[in-house]
């Protein structure tokens, strides 16, 4: 069924049909009966002591101003209150895992950029780790440091693309543009370093594509010189404002049990009191030599996530200063054959991505192309979590809760 085509008869459809039009592909042998639409792990029943209206279904997305990509969220509403919700994804599915099977190991990085389009360096690095682990490639130290520089710059840029739209979704237009201004500088640095602004293709198995450019280094040092002041400004313009705080405090609470059970990683886990950061607990590259803190918040609400991520900004800035000053000399690429052959086996490469643990699991059959690549998208797990948080709130809460998880649907759908 193609609802965008001109011959699609919208008026002839029942609401149930329209809302659940992709329900036809049941994966179970017997279609489950008697479950209402939308389906989710959580549902709010009507309180008989409170006023309730006839419930109606609201389709939010896939082209809605605040679904950030292509999320379709079906909300069952009682007035303004959300009673249940269901997330539909797949509008951006490009079969990246399948495409990976048709490419050489050294040619996978562009696909990783397209999977996580906000922070492409990080899955590239995870993939490089997986391949290097399996092929036992010795990576030069400088390559590790360059990867870390690119990753931290990209992490800050990606976080700006979360914080700004979080403000935008809560109604504040100004902060978004101030953050985009700073992100723009970081994108220029990455463009100078890698050749493109978003689709970097920079980190390869065995090293990186190019050495540090003087232009990028100068721009980065210039930005770092005023970064702390800029971050204070960004705190003041958005997070300090009481109007924003009353929108995010106590909303979208992920308890610690829920975070563990639903596979939260990264900032969502840290905001729920799980003290786990791959950069500190399983250091890769230069992170064991760097001095940084991991901020933990206990409440698990949106405000905790905001606080945790503001601290991630500052830690990344701190790390970047150390990385730039301590950048070792040497080659930036290991000597590799033109066509890389990887021995048979399995391997797992991981990084602390912008949004959580990005893990790349590779099966190799000994050839030049991977047999199977699994991209572990942290957002897929957070999406299921967000979906159970929406019932019980209001529409505005739903929007802000969804925004607070920093969804990147390239990563969810792959």
């Amino acid at each position, binding site marked *: 069924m193609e609802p965008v085509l001109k011959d699609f008869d919208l008026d002839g459809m029942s609401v149930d049909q329209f809302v659940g039009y992709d329900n036809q592909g049941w994966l179970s042998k017997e279609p489950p009966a008697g479950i209402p639409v939308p389906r989710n792990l959580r549902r709010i029943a009507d309180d008989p002591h409170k006023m309730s209206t006839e419930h109606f279904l609201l389709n939010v997305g896939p082209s809605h101003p605040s679904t950030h990509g292509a999320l379709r969220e079906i909300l069952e509403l009682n*007035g*303004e209150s959300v009673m249940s919700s269901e997330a539909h994804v797949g509008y951006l599915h490009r079969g990246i895992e399948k495409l990976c099977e048709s490419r050489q190991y050294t040619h996978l990085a562009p696909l990783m950029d397209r999977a996580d389009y906000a922070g492409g360096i990080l899955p590239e690095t995870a993939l490089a780790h997986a391949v290097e682990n399996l092929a036992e490639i010795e990576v030069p130290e400088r390559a590790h440091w360059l990867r870390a520089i690119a990753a931290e710059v990209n992490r800050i840029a990606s976080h700006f693309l979360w914080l700004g739209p979080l403000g935008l979704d809560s*109604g504040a*237009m100004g902060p978004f543009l101030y953050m985009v201004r700073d992100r723009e500088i970081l994108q220029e640095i990455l463009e100078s370093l890698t050749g493109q602004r978003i689709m970097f293709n920079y980190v390869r198995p065995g090293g990186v594509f190019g050495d540090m450019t003087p232009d990028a280094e100068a721009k980065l040092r210039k930005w770092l010189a005023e970064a702390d002041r800029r971050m204070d400004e960004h705190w003041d313009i958005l997070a300090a404002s009481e109007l*924003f705080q*009353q929108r995010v405090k106590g909303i979208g609470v992920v308890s610690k049990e829920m975070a563990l059970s639903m596979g939260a990683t990264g900032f969502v886990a840290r905001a729920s009191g799980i003290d786990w950061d791959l950069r500190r607990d399983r250091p890769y590259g230069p992170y064991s030599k760097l001095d940084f803190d991991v901020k933990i918040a206990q409440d698990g609400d949106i405000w905790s996530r905001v606080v945790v991520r503001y601290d991630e900004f500052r830690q990344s800035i701190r790390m970047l200063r150390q990385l730039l000053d301590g950048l070792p000399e040497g080659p930036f690429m290991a000597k590799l054959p033109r066509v890389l052959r990887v021995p048979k086996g399995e391997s797992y490469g991981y990084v602390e991505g912008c949004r959580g643990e990005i893990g790349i699991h590779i099966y190799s059959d000994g050839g030049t192309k991977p047999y199977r690549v699994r991209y572990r998208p942290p957002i897929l797990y957070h999406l299921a979590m967000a979906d159970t948080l929406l019932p019980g709130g209001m529409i*505005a809460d739903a*929007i802000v809760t969804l925004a607070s998880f920093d969804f990147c649907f390239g990563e969810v759908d792959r």
Partner: protein
Amino acid sequence: MNPWATGIIHTLLLIVIMLLNGSMIIYMLRKVLGHLHLRLGPTELGPGGILQLVPDIVKLLVKEDRHPGTTDRWLYIIAPVIVFVPALMAYIAIPFSDKLIGFDVNLGVLMLFGFLTVIPLGIFAAGWGSHNKYALIGAMRAVGGAISYEIPLLLSALIPIMLAGSFSLKAITMAQTTSIWYWLPAFPAMVIFFICSIMETNQSPFDMSEAESELVSGFNTEYSAMRFGFMYLAEFSNNFIMAAIMVCLFFGGWSLPFIDPNSMGVFAPIVFIIKTYLVIFAFMFVRGTFSRYRVDQMLAFGWKKLMPIALVYSVVVAFFVKLISMKTGGGL
């Protein structure tokens, strides 16, 4: 001259003034928000992009007037008119100067608020008639907001009225020329009035009925072409009217301190417009900076904070006004 012709000419003049004013405010919004957001706003057409409005209006006029099949047709058509006409009518009671006033009634303030109260009705009609869930939610929010914010709005407007002892905008302005401007004695009332007028004109952080990030475009989701243009223009016209009322009530209307109000002459309307635009600038500044309220928080803020404060403050002011008038035997 034939009174009919005069009437028609005046009406047309009013419409032209309103359109020009609306366009100016749209241009100003683009420029202010642009510079506030480190952008430029329109630059290409005319000096500083001021002629950008012409193609915009032409675009709105020649656009296809798309009409969803399932709407409540009558409400859908009449809603922009309900929104637009009060915004136009309200101009007649605004005292641009002591002579330049369309219709100086005794109860000018009440008349203006009367016109403005009709606008949420139009928004509700638009939302209901659109047969769209987003529009309906927006309409409901508009009505809820209007009910809860008009009470503190009127209560805070009562204070300058009490101080001046008149409902006529002209009289209130004249009263301020003899004493101080009322924003100083009525400072809390001014703040409440400012907040409520933001709500009344559907601007961020109270743009509940439009709420772009939540409700796509709220009550005007299904509108296009000139119908949307009417709504858009009415929004800015309301903006101007609320700012003008605020200038009349709290900032001395067309008068300036230390200058004889009767010798202002042609400068009076200019002073008035400049003051109004400064207030509009404040609206825009707030609009470009803050997060939106959630709908229940907005209602709670209106009922639980603004209304008690306005009520208590009006009682206090009434008491002092009576005290002073007993002493001096006259107005403030």
